[in-house]
Every structure is written in C-alpha cells, then in structure tokens.
C-alpha cells in the first residue's frame, strides 16, 4: 500500500466568521479547524444555519474569515489580495454550486475552458484542455451545447469538469445534488468520488446521509462548531487493524 500523501491540500485552523457587530452579530463559524488530504472526499453535514456553506466559501477564497488561517496547497489565503485570490481560484480551487453553475452565454466547452482563458492561456489551448476534461468525464458530446440545452445533471457534471480543469486539485461542492433527482445526483457524486480517487481533494456540503456515504470522512457542524468528525479512512483502517 502506498503511503498516503499527508500534506493537506486544504487546511483550516481555528477559523472564525462573524457577520455584523454587537447585538446583531451572527457567528457563522466559531473556531473551525479542518483539513482535507489528497485523494480524500470530506462531507460536511449539519442543520440549516450551521455554517456549512460559510465553511466552503472561506475554504474557496470566496469569503474572508474574521480570524483564523486557511491554507490551500500551503498558501495562506488571508494574506492574499483579491487578485491573488482570483488566481488561486483559477489554478487551485474549483467550486460547484447547487444549481445555475454555468454561464448561459457560453457552451459547455467554453464554460470548462473559462478558468484557463482567464488565466491567460490561449483560446485554442484552453479549448483543448476543456475538451480533454470533458472526454475524461465522458461528456464530450456536450462540448458545443449551451446550458439551456442540457439537463440539470449534465450541467452539474460540466461544472465539475470546470472545477477540475488545469492544475486544480481541490473541489468544493456546495450541495451539488440539491436540484437533481436521486439517480442523477448519484451519478454526480460518483463522478466526484472518481476524481478524488484519482488524486484530487474534495469537500462536499450535503444534508443527506446517503450522499455523505460517498465521502471518506464526515464532519458535523452545529451553530458554527464541529460537533463530530468521523475520522479519516486511514484512521478507520488503523482501528480495524488494531482490532484484529
């Protein structure tokens, strides 16, 4: 068995996020510490308002923590400017939302190629990369279709392809199956799982246990705090080894 890579792609240390001030302050996250290793898919669960989506937005650099540290591939996000954060989103982090992930004016291939093009890669090269990503995910027949001409599941899969194009190794998915039927949702999660097995790291926000079952680890949030963590698969293996 190959030694697992123990350098987390995502590491959050004592992260706090507070909205507003004084009596109206809302503590969305209170000292969260979590990490995601390469090849690992972590599910984040919790009731509404527990801070799941906030956790994901801070991890992806879409929002800034009030305090604490967030590292993506060892780079502290708090020290980065807006431009540098955008660069991180182009090269390191991919984000998948619940729905309306794709820009309606762009084809599937163009949506997937977008981060590369924004990164200064030539249009031709970016399209080649996008087509390769779509082929890898079995979506090459959707390349020239517009989002309006695709089903919800197809759009989500294209969004995953965009989240993983280029050198990105971290996928953050915020309830990616929320707007899909169960069969399509399973297909999306299967895809996400496969990408993580291939070496990417993923964090998945969900409030359905059957979706969390795809993950290696589940983190439970309540009122901005981690109340439980199922541990990693390696830890589970070692427990089992110990039990034998």
């Amino acid at each position, binding site marked *: 068995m190959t030694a697992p890579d123990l350098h987390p792609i995502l590491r959050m240390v004592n992260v706090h996020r507070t909205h507003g001030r004084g009596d109206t302050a809302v503590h969305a996250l209170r000292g969260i510490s979590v990490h995601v290793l390469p090849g690992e898919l972590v599910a984040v669960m919790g009731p509404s308002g527990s801070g799941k989506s906030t956790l994901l937005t801070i991890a992806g650099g879409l929002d800034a923590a009030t305090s604490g540290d967030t590292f993506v591939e060892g780079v502290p996000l708090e020290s980065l400017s807006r431009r540098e954060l955008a660069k991180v*989103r182009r090269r390191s982090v991919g984000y998948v939302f619940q729905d309306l992930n794709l820009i309606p004016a762009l084809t599937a291939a163009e949506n997937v190629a977008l981060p590369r*093009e924004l990164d200064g890669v030539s249009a031709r090269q970016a399209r080649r990369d996008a087509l390769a990503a779509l082929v890898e995910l079995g979506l090459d027949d959707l390349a020239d279709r517009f989002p309006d001409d695709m089903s919800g599941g197809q759009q989500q899969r294209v969004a995953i392809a965009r989240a993983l194009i280029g050198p990105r190794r971290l996928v953050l998915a915020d309830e990616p199956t929320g707007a899909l039927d169960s069969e399509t949702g399973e297909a999306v999660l299967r895809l996400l799982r496969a990408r993580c097995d291939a070496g990417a790291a993923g964090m998945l926000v969900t409030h359905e246990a059957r979706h969390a079952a795809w993950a290696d680890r589940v983190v439970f949030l309540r009122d901005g705090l981690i109340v439980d963590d199922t541990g990693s698969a390696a830890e589970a293996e070692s427990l089992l080894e110990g039990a034998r």
Partner: protein
Amino acid sequence: MSGWRPALRIAWREARRHRGRTALVAVLVALPVLVGAFIDVVVRTADPPAEEIVSRFMGASADAYVQIASCIPITEVSYQNHQPFWSGDCARERPADDEVDLAAVLPPGSRWIQAPEGGDGSRFSHGERSLRISLMQLDTTSPLSEGLLRLRDGRLPRTPHEVALTTAAAGALQVAPGDVITSRRTGAVTVVGTVVEPSCLSCEAVYGLPGWFRSAGGTGGGGRLGGKLAASFGSFGSFLVDLPDSVDPYRLQHELLSQGVLLAPRAEAIDPPPPPPDYTSEFDGTGFAILGLVVGFGLIEVCLLAGTAFAVGARRQVRDLGLVAAAGGEARHIRRIVLAQGVVTGLVGSLVAIPLVIAGVVVFRPGLERLNGALMGPLDLRPLELLPLVGLGVLAGLAAALVPAFTAGRLSVLDALNRRFKATSLAAQWPRLGLVFFLAGSGLAALGSWLWLRAEQNYERTVNGMSVQFTREQALRVQSGYEGAPSSTPYVAMLLTAFALAALGLALLAPTLVATVARAARRLPLSARMGLRDAGRHRHRTGPAVAAIMGAVAGSVALAFWAVAEDDYRDRTYPWAVPEGWGQVGLFTSEQDLAPGAVDDIRRLAPEMLPVQDVLQVSAVVAPVSSGGLGPGPGAGPGFSPVWAEARPQSCPSEDGSSGPSSGLVGVADPATLAIVYGQIPDAVTSALAEGKAIVTDCALIGNGRVALAYEGLYPVTVSKDDLPEPVTMPAVLAERPRYFGFPSVLLPPASLDRLELTTTPGRPVIATTRTPSRAEERAFADVLADRYPDADVWVQVERGYQSENALVLAILTAGCAFVTLVGTAIAVVLSAVEGRSDHATLLAVGADPRRRRSLAMAQAGTVGLLGVGLGVVLGGIVGAAMLGADMERPLILPWSTLAQIVIGIPLLGVLIAGIFTRSRLPMVRRIE
C-alpha cells in the same frame, strides 16, 4: 487580448439572447450617430460637385461665361461659389445706353446665348389665382441652354407664345402644361412645360424664348436689364459662350478685361483661384464651445438613458458575473464583460444607423431638396467622416456601460453569487461629492455672472465717458479699436463649466434624492407608495433616468429664460416704422420710382378694404443731382440723393440702453407734415420755425443746439460727390416725440431749402388706421394693388410691432423635454416591470386587482418624471439666472408658460402614457428564490 476574448464572446451572446434590451440600448446609442451621420450625408450631398455647380449657371456645354460689366476696365475678377464676378476700383462707368456687340469682341466662330437674369416681373393670372412672377428669357432651343433648367413635365418652349413655368409658380397658380396664363405685359401665353432651376427650387419664374416680352428698361427686346438698374447691379448682360477650339480662353479673358468684359473659362470656374486671405476675420471660440456643449450634452443624455438599461442588465447578469469570479475572474475581467456589452451594443447601433441614414437621405431626398431650396448632388458618402461617427456610437455604448461595469467589478464574489447589492464605501461618497459639485457649480455660475456684469459695466462707463467727443456709435467703434469690447468667451466658458459641474453634482445626488423622497411614501396610497419605494430601492435604474430627464429639462429651462428675456428686450427696443396698426405701402416700378397715380389709387381703394383714418404722404427732403441718384428729379435734373441727419456727440442716451439711431430722415416742416408728426403742434415748434431753426424729434440727432445734415448716393457708385452739396450744420430745437423711423426725425423750415440747395420729393404713402388690420385684410389689399399695377413691385406692411419667433423655439424645446422625459420614464417603468415580476406575482397572490399593475406603472412614471423635471427646473433656473444676471439689457423674467408646461404637463403626459400602454394584468410567475 486574451482577457477580452471571453468578455466579447459573452457580450455578443448576451446581446443575442436579450434582443429587446439590446435593441433598446442600441437605438439610444445610435441616435447621436444617426443625427450626426444624417447631417453629414445631407450637407455633403447638398453641396454638389464643382462641375455641377458650374453647369447650373453656365449650362452643360458652354466654354465660358461672359458678362458685360458696368465698369471699364475690369481690374479684378473673383469667384464666389464658383460664380465669377468683377470687383475692384472702377476707372470709368459704362454709359447707361451702351450696347456691346458680342460679335465684335468674341472670336469668329463663337456661338452664344444670353444667360437668364432676373429683375423684371409681371403679374400673371389663371382663373381666380394671380401671382407676380419673374420674367425670364432663355433660348431653350439652343444646346448651350442644356443644364440650366430641369424639365419636370411637358416640354420646353419652341415659339414666342409658349412658356415654361417653374414648378413653384405652376403650383401657386395651379397650372399644368396646356393651360394659358395671362398678364397685361405679355398677354396670353401657353404653358407647355414645368421646370425647376437647380439652384432655386422655390423661385417663381416663367421662361420664354428671347424677345417674348418687352423689357421694362426699354432697351430692346434682348431683355437685358437697362438703365439705372443695370448700372446699379453692375451688369449689362451675361452670356453663355461656345468658343472655337483654336481659341485660348485665358488669353481672350485677359484681352477682354480692358474692354470691361468679364470672360470666365469653364475650367477656371470649376477650379477657381483661392481668394485672398481675410486678415480681418478673427476666430471666435464661442461658437465652437457651444457646439461642443450641445454635442457633449447630447452624448451625456444618451449615456444616462442607455446607462439605465445597462445598470438593469448588469444586475440581472450579476450571478453570471459571480460565476466568472468564482472560476477565477478578477475585477477587471468582470468589468470587461459589462464594458464589452457596451461596445457590442454601440457597434450594432452604429452599424445599423449608417444604412438607415443612407436610406433616409434617398427616400426623403425630394423633401430635403425643398428645404434646401436647391437640387442636391449625387449621394456623397465620405467614409473618413462616417467612421468617426461609428466610433462615437461605440464610445457612447462604452460610456453608458462604464458605471455599471465598475459597480459590478467592485462587488464581492459572494454578494454577486447571492445577488446581494451592498453599497460600497465609494458609493457612499457619491452624495457628498454630488453636493460639493452642485454647490461649486452654483457658486461658479454666480461668480461668472458677477464678473461678466462688472466687465460690461466698466466698458459701458468708458464708452459713456467719450460722449463729449463722439456719438455713441463712434465711441463704440473707437473703443473697439483700442481695447475692444470685453470678450464674452471666458465668461461663457465659466458658465458652461458651472452648468456641467452643477449638473454632475445633481446627477450624483439623484439616487440619494430619490431614496430621500421615497421615505415620504408612508402616507401615500398603495400604488404611489409602492411606486415611490420601488424608485428608492432601485436607484440603479431610477437615478440615471432622473438624471437624464433633469439634463434635458435644465437645458430647455435655461434657454426659455433667455428666450423670454430676449423677447422683452426686442419688444422694448423695437424700431417702430410708424405707429402700431398703421400701414406702409410700397408701389415701385423697376426704376425704383413711385408708380404714377399710385397715391390716388391708394386713397381711393384703401378705405374700402382697411379701417382707414387717413392716407398720408410725408415729403422727404432731397438734394438734386445732375446724374445718377434716385428717380427723375422734380424738374431739376435726372435724379436726387437722399438727405440724412447724423447722430451727434453729447446727445442723450436712450432709455433702453441701446445705441439709438445713427441717422434720421429729414423732412420739411410744412403744415401737413407737422400735423402727421405731432398732431397738435407744440408752441416751441412754432417759435423755432419762425426763427429759422430746424425741429429735431430725437435727442440723439441734436448736439449743442445744432443738427448735422449729410448726403450720400444710392447704391455703390451712381452719384458723384462733386454733385452733392457740402454737409452743413444748422441751429435746431429739440421737440421730442416717439421714435418712428418711417417719419422724418428732423424737419427743416421751408424757407431754408433754397439756401441749402435742397428740394422735396413725395415719400412713401402711409395709411393711418383706426385699428390694426387683420393679416387677411392686409393681404387682400396688397393683391388688389398688385392687380392694378402688375409691373410694379407692390408691398403692403402693417406695423404690428415686435413679432416674436421664439414661440417656435420654445415649443421645440418643450417637445424635446417631453421626448427625453417620456423615454427616460418608459425605460425606468419597463425595467421596473421586468425586475418586479415576482412582486407583481405576490400582489396577485394576495388578491390585488389586475388593474393595480397599471396604477403602479403610472405611479412609477410620475415619480421619475416629477423628480427629473423638478431637478431640471432648479438647475436650469440657476443657469438662466446667471446668464441674465450678466446682461445689462435683458431682465430676469420667469418663463411661466414654459415652466408650467414642463413641470405639470410633461410628467402628466408621462403618467397618462404609462397608464395607456401598461397591460392591466398581473403576471403569475414561478418564484425562483
């Protein structure tokens, strides 16, 4: 370029996805391009090529244009609009009865026809219609006449009893080919065709072969101008000449100049030598500044109106922009996407505008030619002039998208994804900045006005101080030679800058003002409350719409202030010819003499048609001359020269601040004239006349108790100075009466005429009335006189005082305001309906009447309209007051009528139109949130 590629791609695709919004913005952005391109193409096309211009007066085939000048030799030949004319000093006048034999001056083998010339006319009738038409002679059977006229119907005359009418004359007489028209001068002639003169579509003329009528000059059947009139016009005839091929026209030209004959070769007329530089002309920057202001103002209006639509579009697109940011797009990438939409829309609008302009010029060509008064040349498209206009359209689109682009770029990724629009710290500064700009602009306007007024007052004090030595007019000329009148350019620039600053300030304040007003909505009925709050919540679209309306209204109100003040000034300083309601009659033959028997006819006919009190004829004092001059002298020689009284130094200033007359008519103080001028003759007048003194009715013409008499010839050179008496001054007494320039301002004692070698001549008849005749009565009387004197130049003019033409200007301004207000309101209301679909669905769900939608739209229209108009009136009032504050002659008068139309009428119109065009049906939409 790599960052722009996805932006342009998205922009183009978005434009195609939202065709309605794209079309709306494209139309707005294309408007300046449309107007500019239309003007450019029309102006260029209306200016025919040089070859065509020359053909219009020289025909299509003549080698040269020949004119027999009244001066020998000709020392200088110039061209104006390719037409030659002689100028320079005249050593010797050609005798009035001189006949030049062209066969003797032109080389053997030359052919020529006489060029048509105006100056003679007659009254023609057809049925009940009659019209005075210019009589023209042209050998239309000669090939040399080709190109001078364009045949529209029928054919050209072939015999002396056939004529062709211009379409203007044919239309007025309601004549078609085949009809017969009659005049006393020519008898009955048959109209065989209708023509147009390419350079004068409105000219009313009748063309026949040479000799078809006898010239009033009596110099033969050639139809040339004869006698004094010919001399006064400087031409004894013009001809179109075909020269033998062997002849060098330029050598011939040089030879003929010494004989007083101008020969202009066709090639030289097409490409004339450049005129000498005009060293006296000075560059006036004010005109360019105003043009720049108008163009810039129009662009700003377009950007504001289109910007409203862009702002809404960017809002609806904000989640897509958030996705781009989430995929790694930076703020510049976000801005580029919105700006690219501006570029795309601007380009689409501009490129559509150009073909529309071309089609418009082609379709509306006949109407444009009528407006132009002349035929236009071939369609003249100049890409180097049109391309910048296309660029202007792209620039306008870019400018309209600028603020929405920067606003979108400043949104955080999360806010964009969640469609949350928070006010940024920069946006919070806008109101403060707006207030600063507005106050600065208002202060600058006040300062500029005060400085301008002070400069004018200083100048006036200096001029008044020179009254000891000079008359006012002389003082103004002298002062202009030293320091010049204060230039208005810097003050105009200050006021324009102030207007721009204050307007920008109010535009920045507009969204805040909208929100402030919205807070007062609590007590209003539901629709008004919702409309006002909607305007306040969606300041991104309401603000620009209000600012656009404000700009248009401000400009119109400022101009209305000026127009009303100008009308007041013109009314006060109007130079009355005769008392109000009285009429003047002109009835002159081609020799400029009063037609014999005319006064008796007027005395007989006028009481039948007008409310006549009396028909008067005031004699004028004249100086007899031995040659030249006006009309046949009263037995003392062939002509006379008018006598004038000159303005004097130390004369009184006029009450209205105007310069006053520089001269006055001189009459004789006989009982009839005294009765006309004074009615009841003052004792001072009787005493003065008994002492042999002149009577002066205008204080500007008397100085130190004396009046100065001067003499001048009529037109350029007809009277020799040696033939005139010496200018004199004589004792005079001031007996003022209201200034009427149709009456003498100086009356000489009858006994002084012989001593001064002067005499009198009957003046123009004046009709004293008991009330002001109507225009129909005035026209009917003129027609009756014209029928009686078909060969004379007849006119009747009733003095009605100052007739303002600003009413049309004000109407156009108000219409312009209404247009911009309606467009701005419509955009805001339509976009509100689009953005508020979910609100409307909620209303429907809670049981609102479907007509509620209509009342909502009306409330929104009223909010936007009233706010925009209100701010515009404030801004326009500030600028108008500043302009008039610097004007010593024009008072500050509120243009109540225009203000009422703008403040009440226009918003009301917007509300009504919103109500008419809004469907009274609330939509049921799926709630997406």
